[in-house]
């Protein structure tokens, strides 16, 4: 079973604050993804990466940066957090990035006051 670990589980910050969400996968998957989940919208792709140093833009990238430092680690950065970024964030990974199973972490609930 693929293992994807996210931290922290919960985070509260203020408007304009700086937040980093972390994700680590230990299954040597090439592709990693950041999604946000909001009621009425399902899961929407923010950024993804196919390897260390690579970054691809998803469907809702505005206000987010991301960095893939190693095969295992993918970070999501909110440098000037806004209340509209209050959401449940999921990291996921897949072996080759094709039409295959996404393995999700347990999520980080972010609240921006």
């Amino acid at each position, binding site marked *: 079973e693929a293992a*994807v670990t996210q931290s922290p589980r919960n985070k509260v910050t203020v408007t304009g604050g700086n937040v980093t969400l972390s994700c680590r996968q230990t299954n040597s998957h090439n592709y990693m993804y950041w999604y946000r989940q909001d*009621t*009425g*919208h*399902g*899961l*929407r*792709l923010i950024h993804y990466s196919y390897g260390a140093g690579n970054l691809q833009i*998803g*469907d809702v990238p505005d206000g987010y940066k991301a960095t893939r430092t190693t095969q295992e680690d993918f970070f999501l950065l909110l440098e000037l957090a806004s209340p509209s970024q209050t959401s449940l964030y*999921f990291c*996921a990974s897949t072996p080759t*990035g*094709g*039409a295959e*199973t*996404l393995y*999700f*972490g*347990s*999520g980080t609930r972010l609240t921006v006051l």
Partner: protein
Amino acid sequence: QQQVRQSPQSLTVWEGETAILNCSYENSAFDYFPWYQQFPGEGPALLIAIRSVSDKKEDGRFTIFFNKREKKLSLHITDSQPGDSATYFCAASRSSGSWQLIFGSGTQLTVMP
């Protein structure tokens, strides 16, 4: 724009009944359709998937029915159990070329004992 639509938004059935969750899509190039199951406090996990060359996919009590002409599919859960209470996401993608999984907004299923 909502490329993948799900209905109903929420569904309540009694234990032992068949739950029917509906999904439709717009892009005729989509040919891979997974369903993900999500329990509270967890990330989504792949439940069952179908490719457009098939019109039915069965896995135990879970069956996907697929109608390519109408761009519709449905997930049938027979003999529903309280442990099936979860949110179900329909998703769609192309299996070649530019791959990206598009999720619907989800159906929250409650199975009453």
